[in-house]
């Protein structure tokens, strides 16, 4: 068993100092002269065989032994011994610390958050850092921050770790591991340590080039939280407000809804472990209004996470959805006419208004791409920047695969749709070329991409690379579903009639004055200064804490956006059993990560103690010889 290691084994060469020590001992040249009455007795003592033996002489010299022991201990300390920990220790060790919202969950007994527990363990790792070992600290939240470079400087690591705070955001591991991978290019990284409570995505789209030691922290106390908060316009002024409450344990409580600071509703909830409950309120307002939902549990029930106990939702003024559908697209117009809450343009016998903003534009003319709208659905219009990638084709094609999770294509069956005259990629062009042009392929046919999506700064655009009139789509059930999905998507994008609570991380873009500078004051009074882009959109505002962010400046009236946690993964506090990477699965480590524990200080103290013993031994009061004990005077 390897019970002791040395960080500086080269210092063992100092053991050669024992040789001159012994030489000096045996060749002591200068001795103090002591005059005595007679050498008779001492001569007989020296002549004694026991003394004449070099071994006996060596054995009896406690001073030499003590000096050798002190020297050996000092050299041992210089070799920097350590007791090896259970885990293999790499020279370069990235440590990923989850500081997402769930890490702020407190233990009902100790009152400590799980981040504090994680920091305590990392502090222990830093304190027991080997001299040749370096650590890089990485904070994991909705993105990842490198807190320190690879360093062995304990002060820097301590300061960086002490500054880590819980962020009210969801965990996202990809960025953290990509950052670690980038670090691995600067230093030989063999493994990374991840400290997390397990409330993280169970699937990570990342191929691990190194080992991951996943240190799962102990579970916190019970928690109930609001995981969804949205509203839907049901009439000209009535909103149905929906909340979802989830719990990690048996808990009961109530949800109180406030409208512009005034309580408008209150509903109780009773949840079992891992259950969720949807709670609905009816709110009436023609103008914009601010909703706030507060969750409270019973008096005796512990709630370990506060960030998910409150949520905000800003309702816009109630109005119908403004949709422009090209007059020649009869099938779309018929479907939209039957959809409630939709104001369809251009209206019959009325002039076309091209400068008026719309919520949705559906057209098969590329010129209509210039219309102002939150969402464009362009039928049979090939994007100009991909025209070189495709070529006309007269062959029939079919849908092979489509993204069923994208809001546009949910609940649709496109398998039987036949398409004629769809464009097809030129030879050698594949999906990656479209992606490099900024488009994502949401539906693929037998000849290539069929539906493209592009999100630009201010709009969302869908391109079908075939005309619906040249396919059987308009005769399938999938078509009205497609239109309904489109309307629903637009309601969310334009925040008209269908409003969802804003999640923490990054605030949604806000239309303000172009080129103006704005100050954003967070709920914890932190201040951010952000410049609106040339289109007047203020984007990229970090929102790491739940609460209301107030935007001021730019000679415009003050606005505010509320950010909410609204994460089932963070609120339920249910740890994942393993993390599934692209090529391997990482399970939580079975044992505590224990590091090499340096013992050089103990060895040094031993050497110091030995020096004290040596001092005492040679300075101790001399004990009288037994022969003198009974008759001290008369010999």
């Amino acid at each position, binding site marked *: 068993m390897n019970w002791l290691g040395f960080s500086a084994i080269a210092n063992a060469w100092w053991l050669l100092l024992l040789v001159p020590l012994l030489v000096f001992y045996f060749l*002591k040249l200068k001795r*103090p002269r002591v005059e*005595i*009455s*007679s050498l008779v007795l001492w001569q007989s003592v*020296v002549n*004694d065989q026991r003394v004449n033996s070099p071994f006996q002489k060596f054995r009896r010299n406690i001073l030499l032994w003590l000096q050798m022991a002190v020297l050996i201990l000092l050299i041992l300390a210089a070799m920097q011994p350590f007791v090896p920990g259970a885990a293999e220790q790499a020279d370069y060790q990235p440590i990923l610390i989850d500081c997402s919202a769930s890490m702020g969950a407190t233990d009902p007994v100790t009152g400590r958050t799980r981040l504090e527990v994680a920091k305590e363990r990392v502090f222990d790792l830093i304190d027991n850092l080997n001299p040749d070992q370096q650590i890089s600290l990485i904070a994991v939240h909705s993105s990842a921050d490198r807190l320190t470079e690879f360093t062995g400087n304990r002060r820097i690591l301590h300061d960086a770790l002490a500054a880590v705070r819980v962020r009210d955001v969801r965990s996202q591991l990809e960025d953290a591991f990509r950052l670690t991978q980038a670090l691995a290019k600067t230093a030989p990284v063999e493994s990374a340590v991840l400290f997390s409570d397990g409330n993280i995505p169970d699937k990570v789209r990342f191929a691990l080039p190194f080992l991951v030691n996943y240190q799962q922290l102990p579970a916190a106390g019970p928690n109930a939280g609001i995981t969804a908060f949205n509203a839907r316009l049901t009439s000209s002024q009535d909103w149905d407000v929906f909340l979802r409450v989830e719990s990690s344990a048996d808990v009961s409580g109530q949800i109180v809804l406030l409208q512009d600071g005034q309580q408008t509703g209150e509903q109780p909830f009773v949840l079992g472990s891992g259950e969720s409950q949807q709670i609905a309120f009816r709110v009436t307002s023609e103008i914009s209004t601010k909703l706030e939902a507060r969750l409270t549990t019973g008096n005796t029930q512990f709630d370990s996470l506060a960030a998910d106990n409150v949520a905000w939702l800003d309702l816009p003024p109630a109005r119908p959805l403004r949709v422009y559908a090209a007059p020649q697209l009869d099938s779309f117009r018929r479907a939209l006419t039957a959809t409630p809450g939709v104001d369809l343009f251009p209206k019959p016998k009325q002039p076309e208004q091209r400068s008026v903003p719309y919520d949705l534009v559906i057209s098969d003319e590329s010129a209509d791409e210039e219309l102002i709208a939150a969402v464009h659905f362009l039928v049979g219009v090939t994007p100009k920047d991909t025209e070189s990638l495709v070529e006309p084709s007269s062959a029939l094609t079919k849908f092979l695969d489509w993204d069923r999770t994208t809001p546009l294509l949910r609940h649709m069956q496109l398998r039987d749709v036949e398409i004629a005259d769809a464009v097809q990629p030129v030879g050698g062009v594949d999906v990656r070329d479209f992606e490099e042009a900024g488009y994502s392929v949401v539906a693929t046919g037998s000849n290539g991409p069929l539906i493209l999506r592009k999100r630009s700064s201010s709009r969302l655009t869908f391109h079908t690379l075939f005309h619906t009139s040249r396919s059987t789509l308009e005769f399938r059930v999938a078509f009205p579903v497609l239109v309904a999905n489109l309307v629903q998507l637009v309601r969310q994008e334009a925040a008209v009639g269908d409003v969802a609570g804003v999640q923490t991380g990054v605030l949604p873009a806000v239309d303000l004055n172009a080129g103006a500078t704005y100050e954003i004051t967070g709920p914890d009074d932190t201040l951010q200064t952000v410049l609106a882009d040339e289109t007047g959109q203020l984007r990229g505002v970090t929102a790491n804490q739940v609460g209301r962010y107030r935007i001021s400046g730019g000679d415009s009236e003050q606005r505010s956006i509320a950010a909410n946690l609204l994460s089932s993964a963070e609120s339920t506090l249910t740890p994942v059993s393993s993390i599934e990477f692209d090529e391997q699965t990482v399970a939580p480590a079975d044992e505590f990560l224990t590091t090499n524990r340096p013992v050089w200080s103990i060895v040094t103290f031993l050497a110091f103690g030995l020096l004290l013993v040596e001092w005492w031994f*040679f300075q101790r009061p001399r004990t009288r*010889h037994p022969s003198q004990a009974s008759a001290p*005077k008369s010999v």
Partner: protein
Amino acid sequence: MTDVQARAQLTPLLSNETLARVERLRLRPNRRLTNRARGEHSVGTGGATIDFADYRDYVAGDDIRYVDWNIFARLQRPYLKLYAHEEELHVVIILDASSSMASEGKFERVRQLAAAFSTMALLGTEQVSLFATTGTGERPTTLQSCSGRSATRLVFEFLESVSPGGDSTIDTAIASALRVHRGRGIAIVLSDFLTTGDVSRSFNLLNSAGLELFALQLLGPNEIEPDLTGDVRLVDCETGRTLDVSSARDLLDLYHEHRLAQQTWLSSQCRRRNGRFESVSSDNTLESILFETLLRRGWVR
């Protein structure tokens, strides 16, 4: 001590109080090694003193003047009255005055003890002679046999004049003393006995010369309990020879063993010749040596 007190002292070697106590003591030999000359040591019956000693049967040729006629009248048998016989005792005091005795007040204590023993002997009407060693090949400093209270001044002056020095060993001093001394009695040898010579031969000479051996070893405190540590070079103050000793403190136990072994050997050598041996420390007071140690061990009475 003030000048007046100093002048009132009979000798600087002994205080008047100690001298007064010493005058009441007498040497106590084990054997009757006396001279035929009349003295004060009662050595047996048949003497001419007035002290009755014993009776014995009359045999032909006995002086009838010593027949106890009262006994004869009652028992009708002649018995002779015997009287105590007192003879003269010689006390030879041999002082080790070598350089080794100069340290730690050993020689001062030796002179005091010699003065005390001389006083006891002179007041007991013994013959006292003193011998002090000198350098090798030189004759010892000697005070020839003297007796009587009046000789105490001579003894004190002799002892006051003797100073330590030289490298003569105690065995050569004994041999030199026996070359000039005649007479039976007691030989008191005062030395540290830290000598390389064979003292057993000297003890034999003393015994064969009719001198009962009283050997008193005086050692300094540092000889009894050396204060040595580490590696030292020991220098003999008499010969100047050196001896390197490593980790002296560790050898102290062995030193004590050797010192005790030497004392045991000296004691056994003295006992084998009906003599006495005692070892004392020079930092003991004269009074404690005389009135406690030697009195308790039966050297004096």
